[in-house]
């Protein structure tokens, strides 16, 4: 990582204000992170007022500290699980609870952080921390959070590279470009009837001014 962050901060700057840090640690330990089950079931979390006074700044610092630490743990755990997986397909298998889906543990951490600070979007969170940038502790934690978020995506990009190599042999010999014909003899299954149909039957041959929109889904969910 470079020494400059998007916010022009020094990375890993030493922090003055030991009393602020100590208070932040006390507050951080009082924040409970919900489990994955909480993240998928139950009602939304109640909003609290925005924090703008001295006490509010400490809560912001504590929340950022907890979030950065939590996301760091997710990244480190994910990297270890990836290295320990017998193979790539095992690691990315959604049904492997110790596989890549565990990176989603970060989601309830963001929910808790934002909810505890009375914000509901990343943009609002950023506005809040920018309003407290005079505090060196806040700047350091923001820097740390951004750094670990970049590490999070860098790790996934690394897995993607291996996935790309793994899939190389499965790729079509030619990817269709604009103005080229699709492979119209591709056999597809009509979900309703269960019968086999060819792609060309989906093209509207009745009217050459008509276009057919093919929406290729990611998954049914």
């Amino acid at each position, binding site marked *: 990582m470079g020494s400059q962050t998007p916010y022009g901060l020094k990375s890993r700057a030493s922090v003055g204000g030991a009393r602020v840090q100590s208070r932040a640690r006390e507050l951080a330990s009082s924040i409970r992170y919900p489990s994955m089950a909480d993240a998928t079931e139950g009602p939304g979390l109640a909003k609290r007022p925005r924090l703008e006074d001295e006490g509010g700044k400490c809560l912001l610092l504590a929340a950022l500290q907890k979030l950065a630490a939590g996301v760091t743990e997710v990244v480190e755990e994910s990297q270890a699980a990836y290295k320990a997986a017998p193979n790539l397909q095992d690691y990315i298998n959604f049904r492997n609870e110790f596989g890549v889906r565990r990176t989603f543990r970060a989601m309830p951490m963001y929910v808790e952080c934002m909810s505890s600070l009375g914000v509901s979007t990343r943009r609002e969170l950023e506005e809040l921390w920018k309003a407290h940038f005079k505090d060196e502790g806040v700047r350091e934690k923001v820097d740390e959070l951004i750094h670990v978020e970049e590490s999070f*995506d860098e790790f996934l990009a690394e897995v993607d590279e291996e996935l790309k190599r793994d899939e190389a042999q499965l790729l079509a010999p030619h*990817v269709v470009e604009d103005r080229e014909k*699709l492979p119209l003899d591709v056999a597809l299954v*009509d979900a309703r009837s269960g019968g086999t149909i060819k792609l060309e039957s989906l*093209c509207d041959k009745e009217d050459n001014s008509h276009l057919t929109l093919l929406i290729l889904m990611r998954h049914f969910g």
Partner: protein
Amino acid sequence: MVAHGIRESGLKWLENTQLPFPLVLDKELRLYRALGLRKSVLGVWRIDSVLGYAEERLAGVKGAPVYEGDDLHVMGGDFFVDSEGRLVYSYRSAKSRDRPSVEDLLGVLSKQTP
């Protein structure tokens, strides 16, 4: 609509959504691959996707279910083909929830109108 899951999940999804259009299944991903769509873990689990889900959670939006046979890592896309089967528009999703706007799609159609 083109999907790659199993038929049973497709029928369940049709019942849930009442889709009035054809739903076809490309289980071997032949069409997906011919259109340059591949699997991606970054596209699915990247930090801005995590944030998007967190914001939805805070807005009270319930998470989508995972259907039997779903492979979450297959990237999707939107493609217009003409009556001869030629590709006239392509949008390959780089991440989850990455789709062209309805306005963009209607814009493609309006260019076709004589």
